[in-house]
C-alpha cells in the first residue's frame, strides 16, 4: 500500500537543551509525528502528580491482599525445616480431615532453581524420591475456610524426612569433599545475571562453570602490554528484595476460566506460564493486578507459590488466597546472589586499558545465574577481555533477578578497581573515565555531577585529622536500554468525550499509569486527569513487563501512536462539521480546531459526532527508528545503553567503624524524561537500595544448621529513616529520535552505581579499601586493622 511507505521525518537529538540538533528518521505513517523537546510540551516531561498517590496514602488503593472473593479459602504452605533431606513419606490425611480444610496437596514445584538433567539413556518416567534442598523449600499446601484452620491443618501434616549432608557456605561448597547439593548435572534458567543456564556448562561437584561467554581479544597479550596492573578480590553478600508488599495471590479456578489476582511484575508472562503449566489456552487464563508494593525482580513470574495456589483452587473448586509472611519472603522468594570476584585490569600510562579479566564465583543457593553481568565487559573501551563465571550451589533458597542483576555486584568490584587504577596513575578518577569511557552521555553526567557535588574539594585519601574522616567517591552505571516489542495498548474515545487507555502493563509502584495518562493527554489536547487508565489486566492488549528498566520505553510509544491514530478517526468524524479536511485539524487545550484556529469545538462536542458509541485504536511497540543493537525474540536492546553517574560523600568514624553517607548526587539519563517527579522518586529508591546494600543488608545463613538466622526485618537490616542521606537527583534530557516518545528506563541504573560510589568514598575517607559488602563497623575496623587478635574463646 502506498500509504504505508516510510516517510522521512526530523527528530530532535542531543543532550544540551540549548543546542539540540536534528536527525532524519524514516518512519511509518502510523507513527505519531515527531515530538518536540519537553520544554514545548504541555504534559510530557512535567511533574504531574502520581494518579493513585492519594489512594495509596489513604489506604483505598486495592492491593492483592485486599481482594476478597465469595467463598474464598486461605492457603498456607508447609516448608522444609531441613537444609537437605529426602522425603520418605508425606501424609496429608489428618490435615485434609481437619474442619474447614477444602484442599491438601503435596507441592513439588521447581521453577526458579536448577533441576537435575536425566542421566543419559534413562527414561524420565521414574522420578527419584523427593528431596528438599533448603530450609523453606515447599513440601505441601492446604487451603481452608479460615487462615487459622489452614495453620492448624498444616501442623497435622506428617512428613518423614531423612536428613542428608548439606553445605551452607560458598567456600565450603567449593571444596572437594563438600556434600553435593545435586547428585548430577543440572540445568535451569538464569535470572540473576551471568552464567546462563541454557548453554551446556561443565559441572564438577557443586561448581557449575566457568562460563566464558563475553570474552574477547587476548588478555595474555593485553597484560603483557600493560604498564600498570591493578587487581583485587571482592565479595558481595546475599541481598533480599524486601518488598513492602509480600508475595500474594488469589487464584480462582472456575470451570471455564482461571483468574489469578496477584502481585506481579508481568501479568502477561504469568498468564503464559500458568496456561502452559496447567494445560489451558491463553484465552482461558486472566491475570490481574491493581496496586502493587514493589517487586524488584522477585515477582517476575508465577513462581512456585502461585502454582501451588492454583492447584489448591482447582482441587477445592473455590478461590484460594495465599499471602507469604515475612519469614517465607526472606527464605524463598528469590534473592540477589552472593559473589566472590577476582578482578584484574592492565593499563598503559595514559590510562587506556590493555586487558581486563574477571573471575567470579557466585552462589544463588540452588539456583543458576550468580554471575556479575556485563558491567566489566561493556562499560569501558578495552580490546582484551576475559571472563569466567561460575555458579556454586549451596543448600539455600534460589536467587532471582534483583534490580540490576549481575551488574550491581559487578559494579561494586569493577568501579573500585578503576578508582584504584586512577590513584596508581595519579590522575583524577573522572579524568581516567574521560579517557576510557566511550559514552558521551556519561561524560556530560560526570561534568554535571562534579559541579553539583563539589568534587574539586575532594582531598587525598585518609587525610582528615581526628577519628571522623570524610571522603568523596564516584562510580558509574552500565545497563542496557531495553525494549519489549511485544507491548501494546488500546486507546478509546467514547461518545461522551471520555477517553480510556487499556493495557496489561502493570504499575509496580513507579507510576506508569500516570505517565500513560500524560502521553494520551498530550496527544489528544486533554488533561491527564481526563484519561481513564485501565492497566494490569491480561484481558487488555499485552503490555510489557515491569523489569529490566524497559516499561516506559516499551509502552509509551504505543500509547502515543494509538492516541494519534484514534484522534485521526475523531478528526474524520468531525471534519465536515468544522468545514475542514481531517488532516487540517488539531487537538489542543480540550478543543478540536482547524489548524488556523478559526473554527473549533470542544473535545466533548466533537465526540458526539462519532458514528458509533466508541472508537478505538490499538498500537504496538515499533522497532526503534534507528534500529536495535540486539534482539532476542520479544526483547530488544537500543543502540545506546543507559548511563548514570553517582557521587557519594561519607564520613567514617575510624574508632567505631561506623559509616555515614551524608550526600549522594545522582546524575542520570533515560532518553526523554517523561515525569521528573516520578523519575526523581525512582532514583531516590535506587540510591536507598544501593546504600542499604552497601552498608547494612545481608542474609545470614547459619553454617552449622543451614537456617537463615535473620528471616525477619529485625536482624535483616535495611536502611531506615535516619540512615537516609541528602539525595540530589539530576537528569539529562537525552533526545535520540528513536520512538514516538523517545523514552527509556531508569530503574536499574539508579541502583548499580551507589554501592561502589560509597565504597570509593570510604576509601577516600580512610585510605584503606573495603572490598567486602556490607561495609559494617566490623568490616571497616577489620580493614583498618583495629580488631585485636583473639586470645581465647571458642
Amino acid at each position, binding site marked *: 500500500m502506498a500509504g504505508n511507505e516510510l516517510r522521512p521525518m526530523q527528530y530532535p537529538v542531543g543532550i544540551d537543551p540549548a543546542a539540540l540538533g536534528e536527525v532524519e528518521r524514516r518512519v511509518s505513517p502510523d507513527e505519531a509525528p515527531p515530538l518536540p523537546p519537553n520544554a514545548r510540551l504541555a504534559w510530557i516531561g512535567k511533574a504531574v502528580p502520581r494518579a493513585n498517590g492519594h489512594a495509596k496514602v489513604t489506604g483505598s488503593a486495592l492491593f492483592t491482599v485486599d481482594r476478597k472473593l465469595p467463598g474464598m479459602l486461605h492457603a498456607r504452605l508447609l516448608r522444609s*525445616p531441613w537444609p537437605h533431606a529426602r522425603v520418605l513419606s508425606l501424609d496429608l490425611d489428618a490435615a485434609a480431615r481437619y474442619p474447614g480444610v477444602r484442599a491438601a496437596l503435596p507441592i513439588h514445584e521447581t521453577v526458579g532453581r536448577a533441576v537435575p538433567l536425566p542421566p543419559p539413556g534413562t527414561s524420565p518416567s521414574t522420578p527419584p524420591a523427593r528431596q528438599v534442598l533448603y*530450609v523453606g523449600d515447599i513440601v505441601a499446601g492446604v487451603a481452608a475456610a479460615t487462615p*487459622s484452620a489452614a495453620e492448624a491443618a498444616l501442623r497435622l501434616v506428617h512428613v518423614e524426612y531423612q536428613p542428608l549432608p548439606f553445605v551452607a557456605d560458598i567456600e565450603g561448597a567449593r571444596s572437594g569433599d563438600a556434600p553435593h547439593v545435586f547428585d548430577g548435572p543440572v540445568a535451569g534458567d538464569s535470572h540473576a545475571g551471568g552464567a546462563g543456564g541454557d548453554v551446556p556448562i561443565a559441572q564438577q561437584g557443586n561448581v557449575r562453570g566457568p562460563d566464558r561467554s563475553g570474552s574477547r581479544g587476548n588478555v595474555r597479550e593485553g597484560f603483557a602490554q600493560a604498564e600498570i596492573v591493578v587487581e583485587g578480590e571482592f565479595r558481595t553478600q546475599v541481598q533480599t528484595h524486601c518488598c513492602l508488599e509480600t508475595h500474594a495471590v488469589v487464584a480462582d479456578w472456575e470451570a471455564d476460566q482461571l483468574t489469578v489476582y496477584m502481585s506481579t511484575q508481568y501479568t502477561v508472562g504469568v498468564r503464559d506460564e500458568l496456561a502452559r503449566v496447567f494445560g489451558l489456552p491463553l484465552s482461558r487464563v486472566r491475570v490481574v493486578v491493581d496496586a502493587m508494593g514493589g517487586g524488584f525482580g522477585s515477582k517476575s513470574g508465577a513462581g512456585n507459590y502461585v502454582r501451588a495456589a492454583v492447584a489448591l483452587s482447582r482441587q477445592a473448586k473455590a478461590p484460594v488466597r495465599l499471602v507469604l509472611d515475612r519469614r517465607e519472603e526472606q527464605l524463598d522468594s528469590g534473592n540477589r546472589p552472593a559473589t566472590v570476584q577476582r578482578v584484574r585490569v592492565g593499563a598503559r600510562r595514559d590510562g587506556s586499558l590493555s586487558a581486563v579479566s574477571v573471575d567470579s564465583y557466585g552462589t544463588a543457593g540452588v539456583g543458576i545465574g550468580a554471575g556479575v553481568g556485563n558491567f566489566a565487559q561493556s562499560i569501558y573501551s578495552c580490546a582484551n577481555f576475559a571472563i569466567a563465571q561460575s555458579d556454586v550451589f549451596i543448600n539455600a533458597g534460589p536467587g532471582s533477578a534483583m534490580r540490576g542483576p549481575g551488574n550491581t555486584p559487578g559494579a561494586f568490584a569493577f568501579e573500585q578497581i578503576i578508582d584504584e587504577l586512577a590513584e596508581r596513575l595519579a590522575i583524577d578518577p573522572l579524568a581516567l573515565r574521560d579517557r576510557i569511557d566511550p559514552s558521551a552521555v556519561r561524560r556530560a553526567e560526570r561534568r554535571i555531577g562534579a559541579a553539583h557535588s563539589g568534587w574539586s574539594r575532594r582531598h587525598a585519601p585518609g587525610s582528615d585529622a581526628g*577519628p571522623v574522616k570524610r571522603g568523596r567517591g564516584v562510580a558509574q552505571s552500565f545497563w542496557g536500554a531495553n525494549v519489549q516489542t511485544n507491548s501494546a495498548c488500546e486507546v478509546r474515545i467514547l461518545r461522551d468525550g471520555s477517553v480510556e487507555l487499556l493495557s496489561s502493563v502493570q504499575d509496580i509502584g513507579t507510576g506508569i499509569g500516570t505517565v500513560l495518562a500524560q502521553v494520551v493527554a498530550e496527544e489528544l489536547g486533554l488533561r491527564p486527569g481526563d484519561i481513564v487508565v485501565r492497566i494490569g489486566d491480561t484481558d487488555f492488549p499485552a503490555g510489557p513487563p515491569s523489569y529490566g528498566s524497559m516499561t516506559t520505553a516499551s509502552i509509551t510509544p504505543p500509547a502515543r501512536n494509538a492516541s494519534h491514530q484514534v484522534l485521526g478517526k475523531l478528526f474524520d468524524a468531525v471534519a465536515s462539521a468544522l468545514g475542514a479536511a481531517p488532516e487540517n485539524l488539531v487537538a489542543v487545550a480540550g478543543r478540536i480546531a482547524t489548524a488556523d484556529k478559526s473554527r473549533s469545538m470542544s473535545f466533548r462536542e466533537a465526540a458526539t459526532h462519532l458514528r458509533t458509541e466508541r472508537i478505538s485504536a490499538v498500537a504496538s511497540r515499533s522497532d526503534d527508528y534507528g534500529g536495535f543493537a540486539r534482539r532476542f525474540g520479544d526483547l530488544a536492546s537500543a543502540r545506546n545503553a543507559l548511563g548514570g553517574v553517582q557521587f557519594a560523600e561519607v564520613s567514617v*568514624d575510624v*574508632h*567505631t*567503624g*561506623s559509616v*555515614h553517607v551524608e550526600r549522594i548526587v545522582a546524575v542520570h539519563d533515560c532518553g526523554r524524561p517523561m515525569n521528573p517527579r516520578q523519575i526523581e522518586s525512582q532514583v531516590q529508591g535506587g540510591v536507598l537500595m544501593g546504600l542499604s546494600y552497601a*552498608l*547494612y543488608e545481608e542474609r*545470614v545463613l*547459619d*553454617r*552449622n*544448621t543451614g*537456617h537463615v*538466622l*535473620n528471616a525477619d526485618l*529485625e*536482624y535483616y*537490616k535495611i*536502611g*531506615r*529513616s*535516619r*540512615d537516609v542521606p541528602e539525595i540530589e537527583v539530576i537528569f539529562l534530557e537525552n533526545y535520540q529520535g528513536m520512538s514516538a516518545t523517545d523514552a527509556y528506563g531508569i530503574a536499574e541504573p539508579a541502583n548499580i552505581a551507589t554501592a561502589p560510589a560509597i565504597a570509593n568514598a570510604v576509601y577516600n575517607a580512610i585510605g584503606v579499601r573495603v572490598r567486602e559488602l556490607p561495609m*559494617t*563497623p*566490623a568490616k571497616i*575496623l*577489620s580493614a583498618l586493622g*583495629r*580488631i*585485636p*587478635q*583473639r*586470645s*581465647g*574463646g*571458642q
Partner: protein
Amino acid sequence: MNRFEWTSAGAVAAAARLGPVTVAEAMATQSGAPGTAATVLKAGGIDLLDLMKEGLLTPRRIVNLRGIPELGRILEGADGSLRIGSLVTLAQIAEHPLVARRYRALAQAAGLPASPQIRNVATIGGNLLQRPHCWYFRSLHHHCLRKGGATCFAFSGENRYHAVFAHEGCAMVHPSTTAPALVALGARIELLRRDGSRRMVALESLFLTPEEDIRRENDLKPGEILAAIILPPMKPGVRSWYERQGEQDSFDWPVAEVAVVVKLDSPGICREAAVILGAAAPVPYRAKAAESALIGKPSSAGNARDAARAAVAGADPLSGNGYKLPVFEALVARAILHAANQG
C-alpha cells in the same frame, strides 16, 4: 499465634490473684513444643507479641496491666529520689524534664531504642524483663540451652552480635538498653508479691548470669510483679552519660553501649564511678577495672582512654565479634569525657 483469653487488670493485686507466671517460666514449662498452660502479664506487649508470633510462647491467658494507673506514673520523692512506675513508656522517660536534668544517661538510653512508635508503647518494665534477642533463642528450630536444649549454637555459629564478656554457657547479650544506665545510676526496684507484700532490691542484683541460671535472665519470682524503678537522689557532682553504637542509626540493636556515672569533687577529681556495658554480656556488665582506673584521678582524655582500655582488657570475644572491642573502647572513653564535661 494461638488463641488466648484476655483479661484486663484494674489493680496490681487483682493481676497477682490471677496466678501469673513469668514469661521465662511459661516458656520453660515447654519441652521442645510450646506449652499453653500459663497465664502471663502484658505491659506494652512488644516482646510478648513477638514471642507469640514467633511461636515461642503460647499462653492460655494474657493479663493486661495497662489499665493500672499507679504503674504508669513518675513521682518525685521528698528526698529527691524518683519513682518510675513499671508501665511508664520509654518515650515518657526520655521526655521527662527531671530525668533529663538529673539522670541524663537514662533519658538518652530511653530515647534511642527501636523506633518512636515502639518507644511510645514499650514500657520500662518490659524493657528490663524482655527475653533475649539472640537469633538462635528466637528460632523455633534451634533448641538452645536457654530453652532447655543441649547446646548453645552461638559459640560455633554466627555470633557477630553476641557477648564478649561473661558468656560462660550462653553467649546472649542482655537486651535491655535502659538497664546499663539504670544500674550505673544505682536504681532499685520494687517487686510486688502475690500476698501483697513488697520486696526491694538493687536492680543490678536482679539479673542472673547463665552460670547462676541459664533458663532465666532475672530473679523475678513466680507471681512477682515489677511495680517501680526507684532512682536515688543525685548527690552533688554526679553526672552521667550514655553512648551507643549500632550498625544503623534508627531501629537497630546496639552492637555496643555504655552508661557512665561519675562523681567529681570540686577540683575535678573522680571520687565515684560506674561504667556499665550493654550488648556486652548476658547481664548488664560492670567494667570494674575501668571504674578503678577512674577513681582518684582528674578527668582527662588520657585518663578516659586508660579507663576505656581497662574496660575491654578482660574481654573474651567469639569468632565473629572481636570488632566489638574497639567499639566499646571508643564508646567508654567518649562517655567518660561527656559525663565529666557536663555542666
